[in-house]
C-alpha cells in the first residue's frame, strides 16, 4: 500500500475514520501514524490537513453539540489533532520555500479555538507563505505591536465565537489603522461572511483554500485611504442599545434568574449544578443578544436560540424552557426597540420549532 505513490493517494474518508477513532481515544501515536501513512502513500500534506484533520475537528464540535462526546473528550481530541499538525509540519513532504509573501495569522482576543487558525497557518506555509502564527486569544495591543515590528503583507484573523464580534471589529479597525489589510474567517462571521463585510474587513474566506486564493489575488499592501471611521460601519450603534445592555449584563442575568425562580417553584429543588447551568445559559442568551444588537442582525440571535434549543434537546432538556427566559428579558428591556425586535424574532422561531 505504501509504495503505490501519488497516483493512488489513499481515500480521505478511510483516513478520516481511522483518525477519528484515534483522537477520540486520545491516542497520539496512532493518530500521527494514521496521517503519516497517508502522506507516505501519496496524500498531499494539504489534503491531510484540510480533508482529514480539519474534517475530524469539525466532527468533534458537532458530536459535542449532539451530546455524544464530553467537553473533556473534545479538549483531548483537539490537543491530539494539534500534535498531529505539529508532527506533519516537520514531515519532509511538507517542506516548502517561503516565497509567496509574509502574513500574520491570529485569533481574536477571547477566541481560544486555535486549531482552525493553526490549520490555516500550516496550509499557507505549504503554499509558500511566510507565516507568523500568534495563536489563540491575542490581545489587540499585542497584535498591533507585532504589525509595527514585522509589517506583514496582510493579517488573517480567526474568530469562531460570535460573541467576540465586537472585539473582532476593534481588532480589524486597529490593524487597518496601522495600514495593514485584514482577511477574516471563522464561524463568527456568518456562513456567508456578512459580518465580515459589515465590520469592514478587506476580505473574508469560508475556508483555508479560499483564503489562500484570496491572498494570491492580492490585498492592498498599503491602505492609503485614511478617512474611514469605525462608527460608519455600524450607524445603528448611535441608539446606545448595545452599550446599555452590555453594561448591565450581570444585573440582567441576576434579575432573570430571580424572576424564573419566582415563577417556577420547581427551581427551588434545583441542585447547585443545575442552577449554575441555568444561570450560564441565561448569560449566554444575554451575550448573544448583546452581540446581535452590535451587528443589528435578527439571524445572529435567532440562530443561536435555535442552536441552544438543539443542544438542550440533546441533553434531555425541553427547548420550550428557553421561552420564559426570553419573555423575562423582553420585559426588562421594554425601552429598547431593537432588543424587542430581536427577542420577538427569536421567540417566533422557537415557537415554530417547538410547536
Amino acid at each position, binding site marked *: 500500500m505504501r509504495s503505490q505513490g501519488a497516483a493512488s493517494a489513499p481515500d480521505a474518508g478511510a483516513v478520516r475514520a481511522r483518525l477519528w477513532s484515534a483522537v477520540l481515544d486520545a491516542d497520539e501515536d496512532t493518530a500521527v501514524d494514521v496521517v503519516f501513512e497517508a502522506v507516505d502513500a501519496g496524500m498531499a500534506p494539504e489534503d491531510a490537513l484540510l480533508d482529514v484533520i480539519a474534517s475530524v475537528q469539525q466532527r468533534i464540535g458537532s458530536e459535542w453539540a449532539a451530546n455524544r462526546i464530553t467537553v*473533556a473528550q473534545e479538549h483531548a481530541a483537539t490537543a491530539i489533532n*494539534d500534535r498531529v499538525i505539529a508532527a506533519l509540519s516537520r514531515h519532509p513532504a511538507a517542506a516548502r520555500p517561503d516565497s509567496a509573501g509574509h502574513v500574520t495569522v491570529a485569533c481574536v482576543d477571547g477566541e481560544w479555538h486555535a486549531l482552525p487558525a493553526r490549520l490555516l497557518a500550516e496550509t499557507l506555509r505549504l503554499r509558500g507563505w511566510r507565516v507568523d502564527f500568534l495563536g489563540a486569544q491575542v490581545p489587540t495591543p*499585542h497584535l498591533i505591536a507585532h504589525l*509595527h515590528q*514585522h509589517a506583514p503583507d496582510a493579517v488573517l484573523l480567526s474568530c469562531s465565537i460570535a460573541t467576540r464580534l465586537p472585539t473582532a471589529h476593534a481588532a480589524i479597525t486597529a490593524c487597518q489603522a496601522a495600514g495593514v489589510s485584514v482577511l477574516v474567517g471563522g464561524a463568527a462571521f456568518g456562513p456567508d461572511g456578512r459580518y465580515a463585510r459589515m465590520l469592514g474587513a478587506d476580505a473574508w474566506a469560508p475556508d483555508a483554500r479560499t483564503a489562500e486564493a484570496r491572498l494570491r489575488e492580492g490585498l492592498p499592501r498599503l491602505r*492609503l485611504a485614511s478617512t474611514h471611521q469605525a462608527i460608519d460601519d455600524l450607524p445603528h450603534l448611535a441608539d446606545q442599545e448595545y452599550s446599555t445592555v452590555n453594561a448591565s449584563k*450581570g444585573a440582567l442575568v441576576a434579575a432573570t434568574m430571580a424572576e424564573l425562580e419566582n415563577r417556577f417553584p420547581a427551581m427551588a429543588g434545583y441542585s447547585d449544578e443545575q442552577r449554575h447551568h441555568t444561570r450560564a445559559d441565561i448569560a449566554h442568551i444575554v451575550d448573544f443578544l448583546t452581540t446581535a444588537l452590535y451587528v443589528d442582525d435578527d439571524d445572529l440571535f435567532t440562530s443561536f436560540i435555535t442552536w441552544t434549543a438543539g443542544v438542550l434537546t440533546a441533553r434531555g432538556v425541553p427547548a420550550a424552557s428557553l421561552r420564559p427566559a426570553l419573555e423575562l428579558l423582553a420585559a426588562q428591556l421594554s425601552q429598547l426597540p431593537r432588543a424587542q425586535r430581536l427577542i420577538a424574532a427569536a421567540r417566533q422561531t422557537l415557537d415554530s420549532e417547538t410547536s
Partner: protein
Amino acid sequence: MREKASLGDAVWQAVPHPVVVVDQDGLIREVNAAARTLLPAATPGARWSTEVIEAHPTPLPDGSTAWWLSADTDRELRDTREALARERARAAFLDDASAVLMSSLNVERCMEATAQMAARNLADAAVVVAPETGRELHLVHSGPGGSAHRLNVDEDPADVPGLPEALRGFPPVPSRPLDPALLPEWLVPRHLAGLVGSVLITPLPGHGVAAGALVLLRHESQPRFSESDDLYARLFAARAGAALSAARLYAEQASITRTLMRDLMPPRLERLDDFELAGGYRASADHELVGGDFYDVHPAATPDGETLVVLGDVCGKGLDAAVLTGKIRNTLQALAPLADQHEWVLRLLNSALLSPENARFATVVLASIARRDGQVALRLTCAGHPAPLIVRNDGTVEEADTRGMLVGALPQFRARSFETTLAPGETCLLYTDGLTEARGGPLGGEVFGDERLAAAMAQCAGLPAEAVVERMMMLASEWVSDREHDDMAVVAITAPRRTHLSAVDGHTPGRYIA
C-alpha cells in the same frame, strides 16, 4: 417710489462691461453675459454680495443698483481660483499623507508609503533612500500602478551629486535638481528607465535622527520641477521625515525591549519522553506580555534525574513585578542542582530576596518530576502558594498536602514537601491565584474560586497536558470575559496514557508542546 421708466433689462445684455443689476431688496435681477462668465454663481433671484469681487455701484432711477464689476478682476479671479484649487488639492494631499504616514510605526512601510505617495502626487516616479547603516544601500522604488518595492544595492551614494548631503540629515540642505544624465541606473525605477526628464533630490528631515532622502523623477514629456513644486516637495518631505524618524526610534526601542524581555517571557515547554508538560500564561494588562506570575522548567541533567518545574507569583503587577520574576528565575536556575532538597533551595531563595532594595515578596511552588517504574514520581513544595491539584483517573481531585512560608518577607523559612505518583492519565496542576481569584461569571462580580477549579479539574482525568491547560485558560477567559483580571499562570504535569513512540519512529524529532 419705483419709477416705471427704467432701462429695459434687455439693454444690460448689450453692455460690453460685466454688470449685475440688483433690486432694492438686494436680490439680483439681471446678470449680463460678460458678468456670467466671471461669476457663475450670480443668477437672477440670488442674493447679491460684493464679498467675492470688487465692484462699483451706480444707483438706477428705479431704486435698483447696477454693479460694475472691476474690469481686470476677470483674469485675476480665474488665476486665483486655479491657484486656490491647486493649493486645496495640495493641502488635502499633505493632510492625507500625514494620516497615512502616522498610521504605521514600521520603517519599511513608511518608506513604501513615502515612495508611493510621492509618485502619485509629486512626480512620475520616486525613490526613497534610507540613511546609510551598513555596506548596502537600502532603497524603495515606486513602481507602476501605485506599487512600491524594496531593494538593497551595493552602491556608494557619493556617486550621486547631492545625495550624501541629503542623506546626512544635518546641516539642513535645500532640495537640489540633478542632471538626469548623472543619475545612476539603480536610482531609476524600471518603468522610467531612459525616459527621465528631470530629477529633484530632497532631504527627509528627521529631527535628530537621519531619515534618508527622497528622489523625485519626472518623465521627459512632463514640465521640469518648478520652484513651487520644490516647496511642495519639501512640505511633504518634512512629514515623511518625521514619520520615518519616529518609526526608526520605535524599532530601536522595540528591539531593546525584546532583548530585555526575552528572559522574562514564559519558556516554550519542550516535549519530554517520560511525562508531558504544558503551560498557559495571561498577563493582567492586555498591552503587557509579562507580569508578576512566572513559570520555568529545568530539565534533568541525567536520564534518571529529576526535572524541576517552578511556578510562582510576585506581589504586584506589571513590569516591576516582572523584573523580580526574572531575578527569581535566575536564582532558581542556579539552585536547580540542589533541588533534591526543596526546602533548602527555597531557604536560599528567601535569603537572596531579603535584600534592603527589595520590598516585594513572592509565593512559589516547586515540582520535581522523575519517571519511576512506569509511573511519574512527583515531589511538591509550596512556599506561601496555593497547593497544586492532582486529578486521579477515577475523577477524584486531591490537593497536594504541602505548606510553606512565602519567600522574601521574613529571615527564617520553613516548608513541608509532599510526595506522590501519577499513574498514566493523571495530571498535577500548578496554578497562581489569578485563576481562582478571577472575578466575573454570569453575574459579573463572582470569584471563580477553588471549588470551580476543583470541579473543572475533575473533568480532566485522562487528558493530555495541553488539553488541561487549554481547558483552564478557556474557563478563566470565559469567566473574566472583558473584565479586569490579575496575571494568570498554569502548568500541567501529566503522566501520558501511553508510552510515546515518537522518540523511536524517526519521523518526529524534537516535537514541541507549548
